[in-house]
């Protein structure tokens, strides 16, 4: 990229397309367990069991039994302390070779996509030939931390040698210490839940209630249709008797969605528009993606669905209210497109993860807004318009559910299959994450 272009588009930064000289990293296929509403059928399924199930389904689909895969990367957002080595333990519990290395990664809801990016880069560099990326989350089987007071008492007790010392430690115990710290989704730095944060953004961008409900309806109808035509036959393996995503409502309608009461943004001056219908519920599940070099895919006669072209992460300052919590992908997108000399017109599929329907709508609105793109993104004008007929065509988080770390792998596998079915073209992924972060990525059909 020359200096002129960089000046024309400061948001583009100065980095090179990461895939310029490297060998391609290919999406071979994916597998996930059906996603279930939290507190439902997977209420007592630990993360490790779900991730192992997702891995085993992938192993079965691609005949990887006993094979040493280059590396497995996955993670969970809500993670027990006992799961410090979650991915490696899941590998050991799976049918993969026990000498398959693994690591955990955590980037909130972008975890799954970030593992795809990380392993793809290793493949592109020739460090590994194959990799499995993914994520798992259980909002049901979440860790509960004990109070700080109880924790200190327990630590003192474990260090005590003699009985008097033990009794002394226990004497510091107070009834109030027994109240556990229940897990929550509130941002630590603002104390606001993700929904409340998004409600502020929704209001700022004047996002209409009906438009949100339309996004939700499209997610359900698209996903139901995809199931009916067998699109998920080679992407999903049932788990604990669950065969389809539990959140999917094939029979929902604008009327039904319109009848729901708002749950977020009720304390704001603007009209509250975010309901349980156009917000993604807490979900349990796991998803993985098999990645490889072309040589690896050929060696094992595996399909090649799409190339992982490039990815970009961004973060925003939501703490001081400068930007909405879930707006980071909006900033990552122009940098990614500029680096690859692409515009929205270059894409056949858009996978924009909906933590909430309004997340998608605010992102689209921002990219269409001349002032915002000029002032906030440093562009010459509006970034562009996303063709809505290309958006989340096989359903998305609202219908599937959103087990935080699992979402990225779900999206990558589904998009890669869509591209492979079409036989040409590109797909764009956008995933927002807690902590004001976001990751966007490009896949290209083989």
């Amino acid at each position, binding site marked *: 990229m020359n200096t002129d272009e960089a000046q024309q588009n400061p948001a583009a930064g100065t980095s090179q397309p990461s895939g310029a000289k490297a060998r391609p990293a290919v999406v071979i296929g994916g597998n996930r367990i059906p996603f279930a509403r939290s507190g439902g059928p997977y209420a007592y399924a630990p993360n490790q069991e779900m991730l192992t*199930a997702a891995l*085993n*389904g992938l*192993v*079965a*689909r*691609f*005949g990887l*039994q*006993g094979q040493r895969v280059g590396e497995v990367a996955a993670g969970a957002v809500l993670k027990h302390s006992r799961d410090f080595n979650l991915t490696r333990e899941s590998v050991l519990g799976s*049918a993969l070779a026990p000498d398959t290395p693994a690591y955990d990664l955590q980037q909130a809801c972008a975890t799954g996509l970030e593992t795809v990016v990380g392993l793809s880069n290793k493949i592109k560099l020739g460090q590994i030939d194959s990799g499995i990326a993914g994520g798992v989350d259980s909002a049901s089987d979440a860790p509960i931390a004990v109070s700080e007071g109880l924790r200190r008492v327990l630590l003192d007790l474990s260090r005590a040698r003699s009985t008097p010392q033990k009794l002394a430690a226990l004497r510091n115990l107070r009834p109030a210490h027994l109240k556990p710290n229940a897990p929550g989704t509130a941002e630590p730095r603002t104390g606001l839940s993700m929904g409340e944060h998004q409600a502020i953004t929704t209001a700022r961008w004047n996002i209409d209630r009906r438009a949100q409900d339309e996004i939700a309806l499209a997610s359900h109808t698209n996903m139901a249709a995809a199931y009916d035509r*067998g699109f*998920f*036959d*080679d992407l*999903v*393996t*049932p*788990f*604990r*008797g669950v*065969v389809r995503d539990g959140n999917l409502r094939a029979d929902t309608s604008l009327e039904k969605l319109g009848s729901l009461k708002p749950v977020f943004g009720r304390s704001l001056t603007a009209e509250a528009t975010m309901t349980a219908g156009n917000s993604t519920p807490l979900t349990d599940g796991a998803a993985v993606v098999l990645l490889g070099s072309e040589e690896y895919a050929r060696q094992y*006669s*595996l*399909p090649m669905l799409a190339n992982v072209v490039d990815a970009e992460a961004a973060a925003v300052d939501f703490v001081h209210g400068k930007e909405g919590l879930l707006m980071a992908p909006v900033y990552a997108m122009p940098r990614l497109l500029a680096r690859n000399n692409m515009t929205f017109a270059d894409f056949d599929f858009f996978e924009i993860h909906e933590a909430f329907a309004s997340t998608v709508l605010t992102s689209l609105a921002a990219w269409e807004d001349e002032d915002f793109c000029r002032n906030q993104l440093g562009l010459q004008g509006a970034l562009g318009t996303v063709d809505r007929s290309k958006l989340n065509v096989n359903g998305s988080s609202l219908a599937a559910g959103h087990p935080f770390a699992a979402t990225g792998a779900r999206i990558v596998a589904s998009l890669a299959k869509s591209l492979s079915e079409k036989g040409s073209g590109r797909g764009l992924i956008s995933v927002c994450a807690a902590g004001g972060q976001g990751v966007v990525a490009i896949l290209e059909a083989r």
Partner: protein
Amino acid sequence: MTDTYLNLVNSGPLKKVAKAIGLPRPVPLRRYEPGAPMVPGPVLVLGASAGADGLASTLLAWNLDVRRHLRPKEKAGAVVVVLDDIASPGDLSATFLELGGVLRQLLPGGRVITVSRTAEAQVEPAVTAARQGIAGALRSVAKELRGGATANGVVLGETVDVDAVSVRAALRFLLSGRSAYVNGQFISVRTSGGSEPQSWDTPLAGRTAVVTGAARGIGAEIVRVLARDGARVIAVDVPAAGEQLTRVVNGVGGTALHADVTAPDAGELILNHAATRYGSLDIVVHNAGITRDKLLANMDAGRWNSVLAVNLESQLRINEALLASPDFSADGRIVSLASTSGIAGNRGQTNYAASKAGVIGMVRSTAAALQDSGRTINAVAPGFIETEMTARMPFATREVARRLSSLQQGGLPVDVAETVAFLATGAAAGISGQTLRVCGQNLVGA
């Protein structure tokens, strides 16, 4: 499902009681174990023809302890009765009476195997009568045997030599524990084609097999036996059974294919998967089947049609795709699951019996069309097999059904699987169009 009665009469105080009052005393059957001797003792070859001498040489070449006579009280593991050149009913007498004289010397799990020529051909009535006489005599012998011993026959086509590959393959199968629950049956060898495997321990090495309905029961066992015999297995079942299918596949190192056999493109899907992942398809086992039992008086169209669609019409459609495809090997093997219900009929199973009888007809007709090719098609008709399905039968009905066979017990899924695996070998090239019962010589459908 455990056979409690079988365990009771084989150990403890009830053993003597059962013997004293003449209760049926089923014994645990001799089943195949890799590395174990083919036969539990010496093999006695009866018959005066050149064929008998030839077969004795063959058996000697397998390192068996071959005898032309037994000393008094000497035990034998098997008796092979060669009657390939008999010309009149009078020729039966000497050999069968000699057989009668040694039946008491047969070891538990022993075998009686006749080798004779087809009675279907247009030959002298006296010849046909003599040949057909063997069928009645052998089936009676099978009912006389105790201690888990069985009696079966190999029937040669008019031009087939006793040393033909498929004759040897059939003999090995019938002598070994692989045929534990095959009793009172005849295997017809129609041509001298086929080749011996490099190793009889892994006769399916290098072959790619598809098993439908592979997630549980008999299907899962077929997957395991084909894999044990060296085949690479593609296990097919409906997406909803994916969880069990994963377990089966990961146990044997194959690949799972989530597909509905009744889908119009099921054949293409299977062929495509096999060709892409393994280069070709050599064996197809049509095991997928359902029951929707009801008395015909109460039968609705849904029950009738779904059973015919899954059990029969899917097989016809998939076969059509297979036989038109160059990806299905020139020496491809198709094995269909029929049922003794399709032979004898069963109260409340008109739909099921129609579908399974249909399979028998389909196999006969397809075999005729394949006559000049290296491809074969056969059916296996299980009798009472201990599965989840038969475990749901009422207690008394189940007990009666179990004791109705000459072996006085139900078979195991592995017994069906062994027969399927035998028919799937390259060495079984001369066997086509047949329906081989795996029923312990059940009275039903005899």
